[in-house]
């Protein structure tokens, strides 16, 4: 991918790989540069980023007291 040639369609096609940090450094930079000058793609990227943050937050739940006790019993702590 080249920064000057990449289209919005290509950016959207690779957006999740970009957000997942799965692209190589050069392609990561190409999309970074595109997002700096394309408000539509930037809006889409921000939307997906924010949704990911909300999804990631569901991975934290208060552990039940019973589980904490089980762990204490297991580890003798």
């Amino acid at each position, binding site marked *: 991918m080249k920064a000057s040639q990449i289209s919005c369609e290509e950016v959207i096609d690779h957006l*999740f790989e970009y957000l997942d940090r799965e692209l190589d450094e050069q392609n990561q930079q190409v999309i970074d540069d595109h997002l700096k000058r394309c408000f539509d793609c930037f809006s*889409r990227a921000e*939307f997906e980023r924010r949704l990911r943050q909300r999804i990631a937050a*569901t991975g934290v739940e208060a552990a039940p007291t019973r589980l904490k006790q089980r762990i204490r019993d*297991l580890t003798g702590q």
Partner: protein
Amino acid sequence: MDRLYGTALRLTRNPDEAEDVVAEAVSNAWRRLEQLDDPNHLDGWLFRILHNTFIDHWRRKQCRQEKEVSLDEPETSDAAAFSLFAHLHQPFLLWIGQPEADFINQLLEQDLAQAIDALADPYRIVLVLVEIQGHSYDEVAHILDVPSGTVRSRLNRARGLLQKSLWRQGQDAGLTGHAKSKSGRVSP
């Protein structure tokens, strides 16, 4: 502890099973503590053991249920290509509001958890490992013993299905279009 339990809960969808997975993972980790070469890597090490423990549980459960021990992908409709942003974004409203940002802000934690839990196992597990745990595609491929391309395709479908489910929930809750102001929901 809350992150271990939360991740286990998203993976198993069952509070009792999540407790068992965490307890077994911690027990395994405790027994193998001398294998931890750097205390700074404790978090990653613990979560790796948690994921392996979950996969063992999951496979044993599959055997008990006499189903094939595989992560074969169920049939899905074109929901896999669904984009929540495309359904919400209204460029002409740019200067008076951003419906897509409002939508995300008004989603409740339970809406998201419910939508994730509703995903079939192959999709949910990959989504949790990538989006909640932050693993790379190769790491997930290694954990699940599948090709990296399979991780990518499952992840794409998981995201499409999840976004479609959130869209439906949003419609039911009045979060889409002009109805959103009637929902009475507040931003987290």
